[in-house]
């Protein structure tokens, strides 16, 4: 259906030749744009609907009774369904610690929440297929569980800013939402996210489309193929400052992969973009002493690079 529509616009409406570079690029652009926006709309809506059942106040209550291991696993999973924006990272962190959620479990949540980012996930699904999206979620959750466990074992409670322990949290009972409110909330969220990401998505797909038609095959094998060991750390390094643009970067990465970039490198890059963002580090600095922030970034970097090598190795 979509393909027919894209073909019609590119070849009949614009009169481009199907076997020309320009024709193929335009066709690819129209098809991908419609497909990605349809997926973004539908899935963000469903995810937001689920999220309306898990406000952080509730997640905190669930986690406060959990110990290590079980707690880490639950925190990593709840990180997916609890709505979280980095602007709330400070109150969420304090709330967790205050209600007795162990530090390592709190970190499992803090890692998983931004990493399993729904926009990034849908883009991966749309451009690479559901298998890659599933691999991405699974490794993301694993990194969150392991990262949190390691931080828990290191006993770093003294590296949390002292004032955090002095804060007393109040209790508030919010009325349960009606279904109408949940649907409204989900719909508003879809509009909100799409408003923010649409230019990046379109620019990304356009660049991807252009490269699809023009860049020679195998052009990246030499630089970003599995045999270049530096590709993974380099991808991580490039990924850190690219926070909010995850949506626009994936179409470009998709074409890079077609031209020879290795899958592990792609996964490492995506994880660095979503989980290691500069703005979030700056916000977390308010509750973590520099040393703990450094340890956190260090563990994440090592874990992400490891995932990159692992997948490049498996698929070699």
């Amino acid at each position, binding site marked *: 259906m979509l393909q027919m529509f894209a073909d019609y616009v590119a070849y009949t409406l614009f009169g481009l030749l199907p076997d020309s570079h320009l024709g193929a690029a335009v066709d690819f652009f129209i098809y991908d744009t419609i497909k990605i926006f349809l997926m973004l709309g539908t899935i963000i809506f469903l995810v937001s609907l689920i999220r309306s059942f898990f*406000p952080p106040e509730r997640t905190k209550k669930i986690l406060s009774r959990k110990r290590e291991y079980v707690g880490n696993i639950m925190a990593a999973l709840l990180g997916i369904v609890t*709505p979280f*924006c980095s602007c709330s990272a400070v109150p969420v962190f*304090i709330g967790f610690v205050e209600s007795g959620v162990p530090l390592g479990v709190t970190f499992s949540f803090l890692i998983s929440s931004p990493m399993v980012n729904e926009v990034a996930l849908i883009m991966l699904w749309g451009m690479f297929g559901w298998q890659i999206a599933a691999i991405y979620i699974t490794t993301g959750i694993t990194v969150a569980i392991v990262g949190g466990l390691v931080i828990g074992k290191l006993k770093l409670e003294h590296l949390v800013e002292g004032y955090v322990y002095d*804060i007393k949290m109040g209790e508030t009972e919010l009325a349960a939402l009606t279904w109408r409110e949940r649907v409204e909330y989900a719909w508003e969220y879809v509009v909100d996210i799409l408003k923010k990401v649409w230019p990046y998505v379109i620019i990304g797909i356009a660049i991807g489309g252009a490269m699809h038609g023009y860049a020679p095959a195998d052009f990246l094998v030499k630089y970003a193929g599995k045999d270049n060991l530096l590709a993974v750390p380099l991808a991580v390094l490039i990924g850190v400052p690219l926070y909010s643009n995850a949506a626009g970067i994936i179409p470009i990465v998709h074409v890079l992969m077609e031209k020879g970039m290795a899958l592990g490198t792609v996964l490492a890059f995506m994880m660095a973009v979503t989980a290691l963002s500069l703005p979030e580090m700056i916000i977390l600095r308010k509750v973590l002493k520099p040393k703990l922030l450094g340890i956190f970034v260090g563990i994440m970097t090592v874990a992400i690079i490891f995932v990159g090598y692992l997948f490049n190795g498996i698929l070699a």
Partner: protein
Amino acid sequence: MNIKILGSGCSNCAKLEKVVREAVADLGVVVEIEKVQDVAKIMSYGVMSTPALVIDEVVKLVGKVPNRARAVEILKQALPQ
């Protein structure tokens, strides 16, 4: 009536304040609007996601910005009869 906007300077907090001010103007009521940016104070209301709206010390909204009509509705409900 005392209205507090809880939030430490995120863009949605500014949006919430704007919507609340518009709603107050729509209703033509006299209220006191305070911005609470201190994390300890925000958390004393049991709130973990910002922005949040507190009217006369009761938490009315957490982690979202209502539209103007909804804000008017919330304010109306909180008005002394």
